[in-house]
Structures are given as C-alpha cells and as structure tokens.
C-alpha cells in the first residue's frame, strides 16, 4: 500500500525526521486559509497523487500571495495529472498540500528499501537529488551510496559515517544533523513495516538544515494488520477500482491491454499463462489469480471483472488444481454463466485434483461457448484462435 506525500510527512514528523511545515487542502478556500495559517511570504502548492514526477507534469507550483495560493489550488485541484509514472491516462488530483517555501542550497536523495540479496534494509543516498534515481543508478552508479543495516544491531555510528563521508558532507555540525536524520528515517522504515521510503529531494537549506522536501512511502501489505493507523491512511480513490473489487473477493487482478481474459490459479501459472498466450500470437487482457480458496462465487466474480473490459474477445480459464479442486471450479463456471452474461468463447483447461469429475460436469452441462483445452499449450492455442474468431 502507498500513501500520499502529506501522510508520509506526518509519519516523518512523529519520528523527528525534519520536514517543512504544511497543511493539506481539499478546496481552494481551504488552501487560502492554510497559507494564512502557515504564515511567511512564499508557499508551494503540491498536487497529492500516488505518483512521482508531479513537478514536471505541472502539479507543483510556487505562490507568492494567499490569493495566488488559492488561484493555483483551484487550477490544480480537479486536474488530471499525467507524469511518467501515471501512464497516459493520468490521475485526478483531489487534494493539494500547501507547504511553506524553503531556502534550497543543495538537493540530495535518501531512501530505504529491502536489499533482497543481502536480506536486510539498505539506506541509499546520493548527491544527485531531484533527478530520477533510476537514471542516476544507470548512468552514474558511483554516485549512489548504499549502506546495508543489519536489524540485529540496528543503525550504528559507522553506518552514519559511511553516509556522510560518502556524500562529502564535511562540516561537523552538518554531519551530526544528517546522521540523526538518516537514523530517524531508518526507524520510520523498521517500526512501520515500510516496503520503501524515498525522499527526493532531501534539501540542505542556506543555514545548513536538512529537510525532507518530498516523501514517498510504500508498506508491506502483509504487515498492515498491526498498523491500523497506516491502514487508515489508505486512499481508495488512488487504487484501480477493478483491482480493489477483485481483492475483496480474494482475487488478485491486474488489467492489461490485450484481448484474451485469463483466469488462473497461482501467480506463477497466471504469469506463465499470459506468456504462453503471447508466445502463441495472442495478447493477454489481464492477470487474474483466483487463489487457493476459489469457489463458485469467486469464479463468477472473476468473469464479471474480466468482462468489464470491452477489449476481451475470449477467456482462458487455466487451473491446475492442487488445493483448488477442479470440480469446484467447473461448478463455478456453470454458476457464473447463469449469473453473468458470458458472451465470449471460454476455453477451459482443468488439470490436477478432481479433474476427471470436472470434465464430466462441463460435458454434461453442454454449453455452446465453452471449449475444453486438454493441456496448457492446447488451451492457449484454442483461446488465441477463439479471440481471432476462428
């Protein structure tokens, strides 16, 4: 799960990670009042969406009066912001963050993420703040400092020294401030079961203070149960409605732009099914893992969600029953055809536990648009042919 910048900064503040002061607004009038409350003579109006690259897309603007804050907020609220991370359809802006202006001397980068190879969190820092970090990693990898922290010992002094010397911070007072900043950020990461934290840019002000000018956080979904405060930060409007609906039924769904709807058990086989369709000259319309507890209701829901996508010309149901029993899936398919108008050909391949019973059920039902595939290759080939109208 991801959260907005203003929410990440609320968490930062709790742990003593310094940020500029700011207040979130839903309306231009609120934005005006926020600017008044913050005081000062320069403000930044920032679109709150779950995607990076907001500045380049026109979602971050500088204002020099309360009136201008209101004006900019009215322009940004309700706009569809397109950035390199939103996809061409963009994202609707429903909240703006009004933040006091900052005196930027240097822009740095600081992040924490799991290093899967080392199996411990790694703090990443760079002097190339404000740039896309992927680009820095690709073009000048030597400008990224990586310091892995073993949670068994926690953040130690040497971790901090590796960071400041790596970044070329020589002033002793500044070194102390940066180390404190990084240590607090590590604590934020650990205590909240974050999956990643990114501050880009982290700025040094003219007076030598370090501030998180931006903040991005993602969380380990498996750990949300023990963080009800973070679960409360979930912004449903940022999530794909179909993906969300699917997850409520224990289905894992991701929409793609092809023509063949897929319903599969297991994430690996679901990806493998998409790959096979592609290999045979078709295009997958979605990823859909029905999980281990599939029943008639979830299968019917799966069909409903797949068929919302008007590009779908055929559906391939590919189940290898281990925990999932094939006869249940077969009954689910029959049930689904009663509940939902399945108006495209459905190729069904059921193998594994209770596959013969399942075959019998489908045969006896005798439904015209159900085509039986004998194995993965055969099923995929038939689905590709069906989508082409062959």
């Amino acid at each position: 799960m991801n959260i907005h910048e203003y929410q990440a900064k609320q968490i930062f503040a709790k742990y003593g990670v310094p940020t500029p002061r700011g207040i979130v607004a839903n309306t231009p009038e609120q934005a005006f009042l926020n600017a008044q409350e913050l005081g000062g003579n320069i403000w930044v109006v920032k679109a709150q969406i779950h995607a990076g690259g907001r500045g380049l897309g026109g979602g971050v603007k500088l204002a020099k009066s309360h009136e201008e804050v209101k004006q900019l907020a009215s322009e940004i609220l309700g706009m569809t912001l397109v950035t390199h991370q939103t996809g061409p359809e963009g994202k609707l802006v429903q909240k703006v963050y009004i933040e006091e202006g900052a005196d930027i001397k240097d822009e740095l980068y600081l992040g924490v993420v799991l290093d899967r190879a080392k199996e411990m969190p790694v703090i990443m820092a760079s002097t190339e703040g404000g740039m896309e970090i992927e680009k820095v990693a690709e073009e000048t990898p030597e400008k990224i400092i990586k310091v892995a922290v073993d949670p068994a010992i926690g953040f130690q002094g040497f971790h901090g020294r590796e960071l400041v010397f790596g970044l070329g911070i020589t002033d002793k007072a500044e070194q102390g401030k940066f180390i404190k900043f990084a240590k607090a950020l590590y604590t934020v990461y650990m205590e909240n079961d974050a999956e990643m934290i990114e501050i880009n840019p982290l700025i040094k002000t003219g007076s030598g203070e370090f501030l998180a000018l931006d903040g991005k956080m993602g969380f380990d979904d498996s750990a949300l149960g023990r963080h009800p405060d973070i679960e409360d930060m979930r912004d449903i409007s940022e999530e794909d409605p179909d993906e969300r609906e699917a997850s409520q039924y224990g289905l894992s769904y991701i929409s793609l732009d092809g023509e063949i709807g897929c319903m599969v058990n297991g994430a690996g086989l679901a990806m493998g099914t998409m790959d096979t369709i592609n290999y045979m000259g078709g295009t997958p319309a979605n990823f859909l893992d029905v999980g281990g507890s599939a029943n008639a209701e979830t299968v019917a829901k799966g069909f409903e969600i797949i068929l919302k996508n008007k590009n779908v010309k055929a559906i391939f149901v590919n189940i290898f029953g281990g925990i999932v029993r094939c006869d249940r899936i077969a009954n689910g398919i029959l049930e689904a055809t009663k509940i939902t108008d399945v108006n495209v050909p459905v190729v069904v391949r059921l193998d594994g536990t209770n596959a013969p019973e399942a075959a019998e059920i489908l045969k006896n039902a005798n439904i015209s648009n159900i085509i039986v595939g004998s194995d993965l290759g055969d099923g995929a080939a038939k689905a590709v042919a069906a989508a082409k109208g062959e």
Partner: protein
Amino acid sequence: MSILVNKDTKVIVQGFTGKEGTFHAEQCLAYGTQIVGGVTPNKGGQEHLGKPVFNTVKEAVANTGATVSMIFVPPAFVSDAVMEAADAGIELAVIITEGAPVRDMQAAKAYAVKHNMMTIGPNCPGIITAEECKIGIMPGMIFKKGNVGLISKSGTLTYEGANQVCNEGYGITTAVGIGGDPIIGLSYKQLLPMFEADPETEAIVMIGEIGGDLEIQAAAFIKENITKPVVAFIAGQTAPAGKRMGHAGAIISGGAGTAAEKMAALEAAGVKVVVSPAEIGKAVSEVLSK
C-alpha cells in the same frame, strides 16, 4: 536417492491441530510421509491424527527424533515458529504459510542461518520426494518417481512442470517449491549443487519469475558448477513493468529483475530456456535423450 528428504525423514507439524495443518498433515500421512507428531501450545499430551501433540518443539524433538518441521501457523506467528524450530535443533523447516510480514521473515531467516537450520519458503507448496515423502500442500499423485529434479518459485507452475515431465515418460526425484517472497530460505544456488550431487537426478528443471536476482545468481553458479542439463522457464515476460515491484527496488539489483534479462543470463550459462511453460516437458525430453 533424492535430496533433503526421503522415506525415513521424521517430520513434525507446527500448527498441527489447526484447520490447514490438520487437512494437509492428513494428506501427507496418506502419501507415506513419516509425520511423527505435532506442536500446538496448550494441547500437549493430546493425540491428533493418531500422533502425539506437544506444547513445544523442544519436547517434540526430544520425544520423536524429528529433524524436519512443516509450519502451518498463521502469518503473525510464523517468525516465532521458525525461531522456535531453529532453537530446538530442527534441521529443516518447511514454511507453508502465506502472508508473513517481510520484517519478521528477515529476523527469522537470520536466526535460522545462525543455528544452521535450513528453511524452505515461506508462501510455498513445500518439498516432495516422489513416492517417498511429501512435506507440503502439493497434489502428490502427479509426482511419479524418476530422474528429474525440480526447483520452482511458483506452486502451480511446480505442478505444471512436474506433470509435463511425467507425461513425457520421465519422473521426479525431488521437487522443491522455494516460494516467491522477498526473503526466502533455500534458493536455486543452494539446491542446484544438491541435485548435482544426487546420483539419481539426471536433469534439473528450474522455474523462476520476475523480480529480484536469484535466477541471475543461479545462472552464474550453473556455468561454473553444474554439469547436468538444466531446463528453465521464467514467468512474467508479459507482466507490466513496475506494477508490483516497488520503485526503489529496481535500483538495488542495478536494473535486474526482468524476465528477458534472466532468460539471457541462463541461456548464456548453457541452460535450455523455454519461452512458454507448455514446453517444459518437451525440453526435458530433449535434453535427456541427447
């Protein structure tokens, strides 16, 4: 022969009396696995599925001589269970539970390594030595005895691969589902040399997927150390980039993690890479009939 487990392996079940634990322990017993008991706190002294229940893993080990534990406890209790097993001298913990927090698994794995306990999973189908010992949730009937070792991140692709190998007239020595979580126990690099050393295994199937760089590490290892033929499939060639993979995650591996990159690395290491999982059986047949 086989790797890690066989008909003589003594297994206990942590989370023995729960719904999942009960169902799958029963299936494993029916397969012939030597399940010698289980652990459920406060149910010690009882009998379940005809086997003794203990309050702690230490007691279970002392009374049964078990060396392997199959873990079915709920996600929030997985790290505790794994550490208890390691502390009690279990040699291999097979963690089936899905949805354990990554931070918990980080701590549990580090503790297991310190205590020389091997782990498989979490979030995996388990391990099976065909017709001898099933420790997990896979449908046992598709694994016929044979000469092919199998390592897979995905549960259902394990079944798919094994089924195809058997349909081609071959069979499986041992199949290991290693799971696809960010932190897992035994991986390709540890399992490949075990299959290399197993006299009955004549070919190895490895099934990977996008994310992380375990397959790239495996490719480098195969090039240097593995003489038996390897067939590989990498799932997710058509998966949209960045959908599940966190932003900063891609940087760590230096841009690694795509299917194309993993396939190229494996091919360069002399592995027979198939583009579709539907080709696994045929590819195994090809490398074995050479």
